[in-house]
């Protein structure tokens, strides 16, 4: 990216190092803006989808057409909201929690490959990096729950911890066959393996079919969405781990959650749905790559929203049952089966 910057007339005289840093900062700024705008868009679309599923309109007034700016108005409202802190809270932990949740989601965006050249940091261990940063969220959840000195929050945090760490295993195991196939953890390389016609997508490869389903369901659990939204079960735990948060702190939890939704969807698109490729070679022009990638990710986000407004939620022991007795054995079997097939075929 810094090469592009060096071509700009204003910046052409600057030394290369400065340009590199400038490139990093501008990339970060762009992604930050995308998260804020994208997060608001997801919140708005969630409310609209929920509305239409439930035979009502959802937000309609702010911003003219179908209340598109409702989330912005809510954001401004949250910015102006009084910050209420529980007197007995463990202040440092309590203050740190929303930052961790947001940061965990934000850091994952660095490696998301929106296009061959539209990537913040093209890490060779991209997939591993995403798995690592997304577990930062659980730190935030735990510190929120423990720090707020609230019993419901405590329940939410402990459930969240058990859930997120458990579901990381099937999530990782589901991704392994693809890694074995492509021989790389670099997200760009994984996408390039799916170039060409649509049947090259890993989703349509029968060997990866089970992996895909395990990934999609586990990713729901990773981002605490229905039917796995146990950390914030609003009907049982009032609001779960963010019961005690108001104003901007609450906004960060919210934004973090929606950013996380996008991250897992984007990883799903990268690994299984052909990333930035449209599936039709004629359409694969570099200018369209980010658009295709984002549209596909939006589709997966939409599926998450759709599921949320359809399903009841699981109980905490059933959640664990599904993870340890269904997904992990199936994922392991799937992995071994894939290994056997590859070995035999070679």
């Amino acid at each position, binding site marked *: 990216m810094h090469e592009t910057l060096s071509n700009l007339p204003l910046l052409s005289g600057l030394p290369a190092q400065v340009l590199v*840093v400038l490139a990093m900062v501008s990339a970060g700024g762009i992604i930050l803006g995308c998260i804020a705008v994208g997060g608001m868009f997801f919140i708005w679309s969630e409310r609209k989808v929920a509305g239409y599923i439930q035979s009502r309109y959802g937000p309609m007034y702010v911003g003219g057409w179908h209340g598109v700016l409702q989330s912005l108005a809510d954001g401004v409202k949250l910015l102006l909201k009084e910050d*209420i802190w529980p007197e007995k809270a463990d202040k440092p932990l309590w203050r740190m929690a929303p930052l961790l949740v947001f*940061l965990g989601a934000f850091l994952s965006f660095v490696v998301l490959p929106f296009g061959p050249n539209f990537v913040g940091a093209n890490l060779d261990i991209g997939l591993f990096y995403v798995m690592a940063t997304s577990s930062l969220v659980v730190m935030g959840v735990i510190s929120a729950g423990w720090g707020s000195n609230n019993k419901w929050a*405590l329940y939410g945090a*402990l459930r969240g911890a058990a859930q997120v760490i458990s579901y990381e295993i099937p999530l*990782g195991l589901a991704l*392994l066959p693809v890694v074995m196939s492509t021989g790389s953890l670099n997200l760009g390389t994984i996408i390039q393996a799916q170039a060409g016609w649509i049947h090259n997508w890993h989703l349509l490869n029968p060997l990866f079919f089970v992996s895909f389903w395990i990934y999609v369901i586990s990713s729901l659990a990773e981002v605490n969405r229905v039917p796995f939204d146990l950390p914030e079960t609003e009907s049982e735990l009032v609001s779960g781990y963010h019961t005690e948060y108001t104003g901007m702190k609450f906004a960060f939890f919210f934004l973090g959650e929606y950013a996380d939704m996008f991250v897992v969807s984007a990883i799903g698109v990268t690994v299984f749905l052909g990333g930035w490729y449209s599936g039709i070679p004629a359409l694969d022009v570099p200018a369209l790559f980010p658009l295709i990638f984002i549209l596909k990710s939006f589709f997966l986000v939409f599926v998450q929203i759709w599921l949320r407004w359809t399903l009841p939620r699981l109980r905490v022991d059933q959640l664990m049952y599904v993870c340890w007795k269904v997904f992990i054995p199936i994922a392991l079997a799937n992995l071994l089966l894939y290994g056997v097939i590859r070995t035999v075929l070679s």
Partner: protein
Amino acid sequence: MHQQFATVFVFMLLGLAFLFVSQIASKLLRPKNPYAAKQQSYECGEEPEGSPWIQFNVRFYLIALFFIVFDVEIIFMLPWAVVFNEMLGTVGPLAFWEMFTFVCVLLVGLAYVWLKGDLDWVKTIIARDDDELVNRGLSRYSSGDKLGKPGLGASEYV
């Protein structure tokens, strides 16, 4: 490569900057009117009974142990998965059978904890010394005894 990680670092700084800027902006704009009732921990509109910072019974603490085992396993498997293709070419089926053995050993472990019942939520209220439930377990789906003390004041619990 270093530059890539530097990017990650710059991102982190940017994220933190964003967080702090918005917090400070909010601090400048928002009203401030704390009082005792507002700052009470939320417990459905009642005064909180005791502290939540207790030795909490995490039934699934065993799961945490298994998690560590399995997560380490995934970390071992990731590099293997990356080089799996190359190894098929160089060492042949051995590339698979090695990992197969490794996974099988872990599967035995999983089977063991599964059969032992440690993957089940312990669906009992365990007998406790400091409670009226002394030496008595209640199964989760049983209805328990009918002689609960009715109408105890909340103060009697703390």
